[in-house]
């Protein structure tokens, strides 16, 4: 319903991740220490969102997490909406998310992409960190060359991101979002006033802790933080998920 046209059954790419630490049986040692690059943790790898206990049917190709539906699922009391934002979410829920931009193959945006079941690949380069997303075959750049955030950025779905290391944690600051972003399927809004801080810490070879703090005074009464931890998706790679290729959902989205 939400993700629009999924690809046909994929032939998963099987290719051993070069240089990964392995156990005697050849499996990747996911609890080995996090690799390092130029004195800092190396966050490079293909990552997928943690999903609490999948049902008896298993997890399927694209296991979901509660944050996909409600980014504040683990926040006590839920996200602290401003009254207008609470009304908007109520209205969006009542219309079964009919107006969700991603249902029309528009970008999910950088924050919501963390919650998508299809994996993402982090490339850590000198001067920037790049995140390639299987969903939408899109990318995001986080500039690490010391530049400041721009004063008047072009509003975008991904925002403009700069990062720096605090100890072993990569701290990413972003602004420059456009109005009208949906953070989850429920329709939690984010406005162009938003400032987002993401904290990325690779605790060992197989785990990446991701903490996202959204400070958007227009839509929320106070800043809030959610955890979107990721596990390594090794010996594979991203497929091409083109929402708009053979997209048939649009004509059937009636809502209420």
């Amino acid at each position, binding site marked *: 319903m939400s993700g629009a046209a999924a690809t046909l059954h994929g032939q998963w790419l099987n290719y051993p991740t070069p240089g990964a630490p392995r156990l005697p049986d050849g499996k990747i040692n996911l609890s080995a220490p996090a690799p390092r690059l130029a004195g800092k943790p190396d966050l490079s790898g293909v990552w997928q969102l943690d999903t609490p206990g999948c049902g008896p049917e298993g997890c399927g190709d694209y296991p979901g997490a509660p944050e996909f539906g409600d980014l504040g699922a683990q926040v006590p009391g839920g996200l602290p909406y401003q009254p207008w934002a609470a009304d908007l979410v109520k209205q969006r829920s009542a219309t079964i998310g009919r107006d969700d931009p991603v249902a029309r193959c528009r970008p999910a945006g950088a924050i919501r992409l963390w919650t998508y079941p299809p994996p993402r690949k982090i490339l850590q380069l000198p001067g920037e960190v790049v995140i390639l997303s299987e969903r939408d075959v899109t*990318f995001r750049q986080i500039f690490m060359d010391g530049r400041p955030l721009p004063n008047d950025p072009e509003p*975008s779905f991904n925002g403009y991101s700069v990062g720096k290391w605090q100890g072993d944690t990569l701290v990413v600051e972003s602004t420059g979002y456009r109005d009208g972003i949906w953070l989850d399927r429920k329709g939690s809004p984010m406005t162009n006033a938003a400032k987002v801080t993401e904290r990325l810490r690779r605790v060992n070879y197989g785990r990446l802790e991701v903490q996202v703090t959204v400070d958007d005074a227009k839509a929320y009464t106070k800043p809030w933080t959610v955890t979107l931890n990721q596990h390594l998706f090794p010996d594979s790679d991203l497929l091409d998920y083109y929402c708009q*290729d053979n997209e048939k959902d649009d004509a059937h989205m009636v809502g209420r």
Partner: protein
Amino acid sequence: MRRASFHVAVVLACSAAALPAHAQWIKYPSKGIPRTPDGKPNLTAPAPKMPDGRPDLRGIWMPGPGTYVGNIAKDLKPDAIPFQPWAKTLYEHRQETQSKDDPTGWCVPGGVPRSDAVPYPFKIIYTDDEVVILYEAVHSYRQIFVDGRQAPKDPNPNWLGYSVGHWDGDSLVVETSGFVENSWLDNGGHPGTQAMHVTERFRRKDFGHAEIFITIDDPKAYTKPWSVTLPLQLQPDTELLEYICTENNKDLEHLVGK
């Protein structure tokens, strides 16, 4: 340059769909590039190399001078394309119908080599194992694995194919296969099939100029391989913008053709 190119794109493409509203170009000085005494990038300085001697193609590039997205073979004589008969008929049909069936009207990526020719910048980045091209157009990317792996025998067919590369002297040689059945090599509609194998030789001639020597080998659509050379110009002191084709796409209803 980029501003002008948008308009060129509109006229030639008709396919590229929703353009962003007037963009505020991102200006940020590229670090570590050679500059003339007045501070401008020295685009005719020697081509850089990586510390290990590999050619350094990193940077933001635009196709040109010249526009190849309308007809990737524009430098060849019209009868130089070795079409199979059905492919010639199809190409002529696409010409007559003003490319109304162009798949990029639905916002899928241009593919290979068309994405090399689309008049929007792309950024080449390197990791140890791969070369990645970030495309402003459709805000997409292509991974080119340079870790020695072979192309898969039975890849998932897709618009950008599956690319593996190797270094050959001053060139990066990229071999791509695994395409969908209905590739368009340009806006004009030169066809490519699932049998297509594209070889791109990227060579940086000096700091600000590069070229891609492209060979199309698709025995289903062409009787023999054929090649074109596409020039590239560096775009220093800027960054990619967010190009969202699917937003406010008004082109589809206007793709009427005949």
